[in-house]
């Protein structure tokens, strides 16, 4: 990397000259999209950097950033970097105690907070964070009567900076020139679902090289529009809304508030978009439900043209040849259905969409691709600065996550764990050498903790967390999450838990999706009074049986996992809930707790009994405790003989 553009402040200076009048950032404020060009943004950032310097911000100091996606908070990242400092974005919805851990661990001296709510949290933990000297806030609302010497309004700090710049005009410029690619650029704390959060230390080279490679891979240009709505503390947002934006010079848009994201999405019409699978799933569910309520003509048109799209759309997107008649029909469909539909979803201008983090259902994936939305999957980690594998245009499969990203090497360890190394590999975990050594070996290979393998076409397939992968009694592999995901692809299954480690065969708990199943019950005149009654309804059992049979059929054709066919299942009488400790806050199944709590049910799944009584403690939303009792029926599922490969 040349020395001219090896840090973000240098890229900023460069963009401010090259793209001076191009919009770099927008924010919807007071109902209007306010915008800043690259030149204006540079001036704002420099004013802030000077202000920080005036307040005594030194090289190596940390600036914690606490709040949702606001332009001023993004400027804070770059301003700290101008002075050789390290920005530390924090998840803004964490409670004060969780924040305290991160701020104390990072030794943050300065805090840039979004509003009164975040400032209150900071004041609450200030005593316990002796390093915290200055708090700067973006939104002054409600702050009028706060009287603290170390509390500063953002605009005041900038004003201070403009004065400072008059006295020492070249100070910040000198500091920017001192920066180099191997310097620390940012600390990104992991969300800490498994124990204390770890501070992932990244260098400029990590972020910039990765951003540059991925920009080239997907041919991103300065004309992209991105909606920045995912947490700033998450590595994905740092790459999409910061790294790639600075490297490619495109515009990022900050929504007005969390609740207006769908409207803002529609107004902006991003060209490049990232969302976790759940978001795409919700969009499809909403569309489906609304189409059910539409008039006959509209429904007919939608169904007809969606069939056309499924046949032709994916081929068109993959650049395969399509007959003229099909092309014309697709054009017609675009006029009547696809374009208006994409407009409502906010995807009118979309060129490229990514999803990652969880498996995505094939029909969801196909729905968007059929509409001509180039949605692709990637596989990544904070420690890799996101990209480990990505799907190249034209080689998109729902069940694999693509080929190694440019510059990244991937290999599979003997135990099935996925390892990688490349330019984005993190520097270290902050103040945690042991973890660093455990995760990254001397040769630079990083252990992902995920089990996977390369399919015949050279694409990586992720199965499960390596620690969750078990063995059946006959020694064959049992990957619970892989099975659960297959189940969860059905809209009426909300959650599933599979069992089979050290057992003879695989069984499962099912959670119905109240909305989907309730809707179905309404349409089919199935009366029910409670969740429990609906979940235990014989017709619901039949419906689940059919879905599980389908899963078994598809598992039978998988050479590695054909033993994982589900032999028996039951439908749980209550929804698995983070409040009861059964799921993590990010809705991942906590296997150990479920195994303890529902031990009787698991035993019943393996002893052949037709039903089982269970009493469970539940926590209500207001904290009171109660108990639910139920007599659950268990059901056998037909299994299929594995399809043997021709030897």
């Amino acid at each position: 990397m040349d020395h001219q553009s090896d840090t973000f402040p240098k890229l900023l200076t460069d963009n401010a000259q090259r793209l001076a009048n191009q919009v770099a950032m927008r924010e919807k404020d007071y109902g209007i999209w306010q915008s800043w060009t690259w030149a204006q943004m540079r001036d704002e950032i420099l004013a802030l950097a000077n202000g920080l310097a005036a307040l005594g911000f030194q090289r190596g100091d940390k600036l914690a950033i606490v709040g949702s996606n606001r332009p001023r908070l993004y400027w804070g990242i770059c301003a700290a970097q101008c002075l050789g400092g390290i920005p530390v974005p924090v998840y803004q919805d964490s409670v004060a105690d969780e924040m305290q851990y991160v701020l104390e661990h990072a030794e943050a001296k300065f805090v840039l907070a979004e509003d009164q709510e975040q400032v209150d949290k900071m004041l609450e933990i200030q005593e316990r964070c002796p390093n915290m000297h200055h708090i700067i806030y973006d939104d002054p609302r409600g702050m009028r009567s706060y009287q603290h010497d170390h509390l500063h309004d953002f605009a005041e700090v900038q004003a201070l900076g403009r004065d400072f710049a008059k006295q020492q005009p070249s100070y910040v410029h000198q500091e920017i020139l001192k920066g180099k690619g191997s310097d620390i650029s940012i600390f990104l704390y992991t969300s800490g679902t498994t124990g204390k959060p770890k501070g992932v230390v990244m260098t400029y080279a990590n972020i910039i090289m990765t951003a540059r490679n991925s920009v080239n891979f997907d041919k991103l240009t300065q004309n992209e529009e991105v909606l920045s709505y995912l947490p700033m503390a998450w590595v994905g947002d740092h790459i999409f809304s910061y790294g790639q934006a600075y490297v490619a010079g495109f515009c990022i848009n900050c929504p007005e508030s969390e609740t207006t994201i769908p409207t803002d999405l529609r107004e902006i019409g991003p060209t490049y978009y990232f969302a976790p699978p759940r978001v795409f799933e919700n969009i499809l569910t909403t569309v489906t439900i609304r189409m059910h309520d539409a008039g006959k003509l509209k429904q007919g048109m939608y169904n007809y043209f969606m069939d056309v799209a499924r046949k032709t759309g994916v081929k068109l997107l993959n650049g395969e040849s399509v007959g003229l008649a099909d092309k014309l029909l697709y054009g017609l469909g675009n006029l009547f259905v696809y374009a208006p539909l994409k407009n409502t979803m906010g995807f009118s201008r979309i060129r490229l969409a990514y999803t990652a983090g969880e498996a995505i259902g094939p029909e969801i994936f196909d729905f968007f691709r059929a509409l001509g939305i180039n949605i692709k999957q990637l596989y990544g980690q904070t420690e890799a600065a996101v990209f480990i594998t990505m799907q190249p245009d034209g080689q998109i499969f729902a069940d694999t996550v693509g080929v190694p990203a440019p510059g990244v090497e991937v290999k599979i360890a003997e135990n099935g764990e996925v390892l990688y190394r490349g330019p984005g590999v993190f520097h270290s975990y902050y103040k945690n050498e042991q973890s660093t050594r455990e995760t990254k070996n001397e040769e630079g290979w990083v252990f992902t903790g995920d089990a996977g393998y390369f399919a015949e076409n050279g694409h990586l397939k992720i199965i499960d967390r390596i620690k969750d992968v078990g063995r059946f009694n006959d020694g064959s592999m049992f990957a619970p999450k892989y099975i659960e995901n297959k189940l969860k692809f059905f809209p009426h299954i909300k959650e599933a838990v599979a069992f089979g480690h050290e057992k003879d065969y695989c069984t499962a708990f099912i959670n119905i999706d109240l909305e989907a199943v309730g809707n179905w019950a309404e349409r089919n005149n199935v009366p029910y009074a409670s969740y429990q009654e609906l979940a235990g309804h014989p017709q619901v059992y039949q419906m689940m049986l059919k879905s599980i049979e389908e899963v078994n059929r598809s598992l039978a054709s998988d050479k590695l996992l054909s033993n994982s066919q589900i032999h028996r299942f039951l439908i749980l009488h209550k929804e698995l809930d983070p409040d009861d400790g059964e799921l993590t806050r990010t809705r991942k199944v906590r296997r150990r707790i479920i195994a303890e709590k529902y031990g009787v049910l698991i035993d019943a799944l393996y002893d052949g009994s037709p039903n089982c009584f269970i009493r469970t403690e539940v926590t209500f939303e207001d904290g009171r405790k109660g108990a639910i009792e139920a007599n659950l029926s268990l059901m056998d599922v037909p299994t299929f003989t594995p399809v043997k490969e021709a030897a």
Partner: protein
Amino acid sequence: MTESTQEGRKIGGTLLEVKNITLSFGGVKALTDISFDIKEGEIRAIIGPNGAGKSSMLNVISGFYHPQQGEVWFRGQKRGPMRPYEVARQGIARTFQNIALFKGMSTLDNLMTGRITQMNANLFWQAIWKGPAEREEIAHRERVEHIIDFLGIQAIRKTPVGRLPYGLQKRVELGRALAAEAKLLLLDEPMAGMNLEEKEDMCRFILDVNDEFGTTIALIEHDMGVVMDLSDRVVVLDYGRKLADGTPAEVRSDPEVIKAYLGGAHA
């Protein structure tokens, strides 16, 4: 939080005073010889059992009813008989017990109607919507956007009010009253029919309005907990008479009030 709210406030001189108000409908005396004052910057509550005359009192202040006897003094001037819109123009805004919004209009448009008393461009400019009318509308819109931001209702800006849940409609109504930039805000049971969470939100907004804009607030409320926590001074009415007047603590320990509320003579 509570301390910081208190620090910034200052309660000034008398903003509104009612003197010896008597109001009757035919033979029914709704209010008998009521006098009290509202000071600038305070939150003043009017409480009392059903039929005590609370809403009648509010309607007298806002010009809906004209009392047979007594005087209303606003900002040091005695008020003659006035129509409600004249009262509104003087700087008194109100919300209603039963929401009185334009159901088919969006939140934004409802809030804009709150600005009508301050729109000055003449009919001609309004009709062609150019020049002064357009400039004026932009200025008003900006003001309204600040209120939308303040109440956190950006997401329902363009939603027809009739489609909103009750709690949000109440919030929009408060917004419309705020849009009028009133000196005195009259809230008729702002928390009636709300659940606990909505009540907490509404309390927060009332305190913030008072704190942030320095608006004087007079409110009628049934929820005693809310009244005692929120208001600086409380007037208690019963059967059209004034029973007590003072700080929440004084009122709470007043034997007359206890009798009226817990049942005594006329239980």
